[in-house]
Each structure stands twice: as structure tokens, then as C-alpha cells.
């Protein structure tokens, strides 16, 4: 059987030496032109970035656009990047903020264009196919709450790190998380 991944153009598995390198070393190497280091940065960060974008916007084309643009922006700005800062949070912050902006813009567009439609219509208009109950429940949250859930559980940040990333008070992050989990629990167990 031929797997889909084997036909796709993906970065090579880097050497053990590169895989063991710190993120700071990878950024330094990529800045100096090391393709292998850039491949490792892509391998570590692309999928979480796309996943995060998708679970905020729930539209796969938009998520692909957002994550791609964020990654390309990061590459273009690589030479100006402060090596003391971690690359991942920098990228994820761009992705999450763009995803939230995109979701808000879509909601506004829907208000103007189709005020008669139900509020749920603006969610996941592109991808209403196969969904389990958790997916559906997550899609029913506001983009801001989804973003906090995604950062916490999909990307694994602590509430303190999320507060820094989104420039929110830590209490706001905690309350959004708590309410989001309450809503999700209610929907999933219903």
C-alpha cells in the first residue's frame, strides 16, 4: 500500500544531530543559511501552527492560508529575529492572532450579508463534513475561547504563557478556559 505521506513532498527527516539541537541553535543555523536547520524548524512547528489555525477558524483553506502566511512571514523575518526568544511561541502568536481576526471578519461579513441566517451559520461554513461531538462543540465556542483552548490543549501552553502570548490578564485566560471547558463538557455529555 502506498501511503499518502510517501507521495508528498515533505522535509527529510533531519540527522540525529540536528534533531537534538536546541531551537535557538536551529534559528541561528537557519539565519546562516542552513537548510537542514530550517527543515527541522518546519518539521517541529508547521503542523501545530496549521492545527491551531484550523481549530480557531474551522475552515481548512483559511487555516492553510493563515499558517502558510505566518510561516513565510517568519522566514522572511528570520534575519531580524531575536535569537533569545523561542521561535514556536512567536510563530503561534502570529497564527492565533490572524486566526482570531479572520474569524471576527467572517462573523461581521455574515452579519452584513446574511442577517437572517442563524448565528451558527458563520461557524465552520467550509468544513461541515465529518465531525464528532467534540469538534462540533468546539466550533460552537467564540473564536477567543477557542483560541485559549487551542493554545492550552492543542499546543500545550500553560495559562501563564497563554496570557503572555495573547497579552491578556492571566485571570481572563483562566476564566475563558474554565467557561470553555464547562461549555464543552455540557455539549459532549449531552
Amino acid at each position, binding site marked *: 500500500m502506498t501511503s499518502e505521506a510517501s507521495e508528498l513532498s515533505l522535509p527529510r527527516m533531519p540527522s540525529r544531530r540536528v534533531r537534538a539541537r536546541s531551537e535557538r541553535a536551529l534559528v541561528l543555523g537557519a539565519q546562516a543559511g542552513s537548510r537542514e536547520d530550517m527543515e527541522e524548524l518546519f518539521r517541529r512547528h508547521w503542523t501545530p501552527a496549521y*492545527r491551531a489555525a484550523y481549530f480557531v477558524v474551522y475552515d481548512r483553506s483559511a487555516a492553510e492560508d493563515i499558517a502558510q502566511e505566518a510561516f513565510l512571514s517568519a522566514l522572511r523575518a528570520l534575519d531580524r529575529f531575536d535569537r533569545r526568544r523561542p521561535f514556536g511561541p512567536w510563530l503561534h502568536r502570529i497564527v492565533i492572532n490572524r486566526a482570531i481576526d479572520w474569524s471576527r471578519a467572517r462573523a461581521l461579513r455574515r452579519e452584513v450579508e446574511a442577517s437572517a441566517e442563524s448565528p451558527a451559520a458563520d461557524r465552520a461554513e467550509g468544513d461541515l463534513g465529518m465531525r464528532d461531538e467534540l469538534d462540533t462543540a468546539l466550533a460552537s465556542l467564540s473564536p477567543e475561547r477557542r483560541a485559549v483552548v487551542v493554545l492550552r490543549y*492543542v499546543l500545550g501552553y500553560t495559562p501563564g504563557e497563554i496570557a503572555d502570548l495573547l497579552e491578556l490578564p492571566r485571570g481572563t485566560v483562566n476564566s475563558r478556559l474554565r467557561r470553555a471547558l464547562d461549555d464543552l463538557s455540557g455539549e459532549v455529555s449531552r
Partner: protein
Amino acid sequence: MKPLERRLRSLQAPDEAAVASRAWELASVEFERREPRARSHRGRTLAIALAALCVAAIVISPAGAGVVRWVGDRFDRPGLKHAKPFLGSLPAQGRLLVTSSDGLWVVQHDGSKRQLGRYADAAWSPHGLFIVATRGHELVAMEPGGRVHWTVTASPRPRAPVWSPDGFRIAYFSGPDLRLVIGNGTGDHLFAARVAPVAPAWRPGIDHVLAFVARGGVTAANVDLGTTLFRAGGVRPLQLAWSPDGRLLLVVERERLRLVDSRGRTRKALDLPAGFVARRAAFSPDGETIALLRERSGLSDVRLLSVRGHSWHERAGAPVSGAFSSLEWSPDGRWLLLAWPAADQWLFVSPARVLPVSGIARAFAGGAGPAAFPSLGGWCCY
């Protein structure tokens, strides 16, 4: 860990591998484009000096002697992998006109297609409400659904009809003659004889100014008043196109682009680098950018040039190369559609994405025999 949290941690987005593959191709290209930061002091100094020279060459070039240092020509991919095997929805609003050996097709935004019949040389009316096309000796105006509104007969056969921006005039060729007909199919008459076979271009506006190529130069004339606005001699254009605001006429020659103002004066000119020839150029819908399809040794690429100012500034090029035959802007100006006959592909290109679609010839072939690659007739209207 609670079951809900465990399930949240295991969420996966759709098509992660395919999306990563596309992103990796773009990221690789982007990475190749950038200059590494760490290099010797001498090398860095040289790079800065070269960059300064390039910028100076671009910015200082006077009108009529423009020279652009083309940069970033590293995209020599022989073909694009992972092309979608069928045309899904278009990435932007609007509809496409496509002419194949089996006739004329309209492709809707959702990717659905309708064959209108055995027409050729099709073009949209200004708002996409009608299509003008040819069929044998007939010039035909019809709705996008195929309902014919009128026909005009011409001999020799009509060719290359173009609708005026207000919808009230259509210009077309009949042999070497340039003829005009009113938008309702009446008043067909000869406008100019012995005209070069370059599609004429209507100036945006309501005054029916038409630019065409005849007697070794470009003429712009008001077709209703019969007055000539200007005549620019000594040029051999392949293509003419007015800017959306009607202030500038783009004259595409084999090795040179010119922007000509409404009095026929060249405001800017751009000589292509040695070995390159221009194939096609088009203003973006907002008029800010010209997309130039150029070719060297059978390999073509697309350059985006800023229209503003007295010199040429190159914006980021489309990150693809191939052997393209034509290009079209999407109505919102966010995408370029490139036709690549040898690869049997269409490429939808935006600054961040390239969406290749393969199997184009077969998609627009009615029969079971070998299918020829179709031509594009325009991507029109919201």
C-alpha cells in the same frame, strides 16, 4: 488528566500531510530566496553594494530608458507536483470563460461547468451579463446560460471580439479590417482597414476610445466622433491594455513594455533583460500592478511590476516558473491564473499559495479522443 482534556490534546486538523506538503514547497522556495545572514564581511559589503546598485538602477531609470535588474530567478521547477486532478471551486469569486476544441465553456465559482456550444474567440461583456463569441461567419451575443440574443454575419470570418467597458460597442476583426457593432447587434460597420492582428483595447469610460495597431504604430481614436487622440509610431506591439482608470495604455512589445499617456507620450518604458521576451501582460483590477509573463529559452515566469511612479519597481514575483501560455487576474486581484499547456495544468497563484490543477485538457473535452489544451477567455466579475 480528564477524558475531555485528553480528547482535546489528540485533535487533528484535516489533510495535515497534504497541507504540510504544499507549505513545505513554498517554505523551501522562500528559504532559497533569502540571503544567509552570516557571511564574510567582504561578502556582506559586496552584497550591500550590489543591492544598492540594483535599487539605484530601478529607481533612477528615466522614462524611455528603463532597465530593471531582475532578481530572484531561481524558480526553475520543471513541474508542480500534487496538482489536484480536477477543478474544484475557483479560489476567488467570478466565472471563467474557456474555449476548447469542443467549444465554449463557462466555469462557475463552485467549479461547475456549462458547455455553450461550438463557439470560439469568446469575451465577457463588462459586467459578465453577456458573452460575445464567434461561430463560423457569425458574431454571436448570448447570455452565460447560452441563450442567444443576436448574431451578425461577417465575411471573412469574425475574430477576436472585444466589448467596450460601457457595453455599448463591440470591436472585432474580419480579415484585416477592424469593424464595430453596437451592443444590441445593430449598426455593424467598417471602422479601419488593414489593421494589424493585435486585439484592440477599449479605454475605460463612456467615450468609446479604441486603441489599435496599424501602419507601424498605435492609434487611439474616438470611434463615435472619428477623431484621433494620438498616434505613436515606431512600435510593434504584441498586446495593448488600458489601465483600469483609463489614464495609461500599456504597450507590450517583444522586448519592451511602455506605458503611454492619453496624449501618446511614453511615461515609462522597460527593456526586458537580454534573452527574455514578453508573452503577455495584464493590469491588476486595482490598476496598481502589471503582471508580466515573460519567457527565455522556453521557460517562462511572471513578474509583478508596480505601476506608480516614474520608474519601475518590481514587486515580489509569482513563485513559479514553467512554460505558460497565458495569465488572468482574478476579479478581486488576489490570484493569478496561469495556463501551462505542456504540463496540462492551470496554476492559481497568490502571494502565499500555489494551487495547481491538472487534467485541464480532458476536463474541457467532449469526446473520447485526444484533447487539446483549452484557452482562457477571461475571469470575470463578482
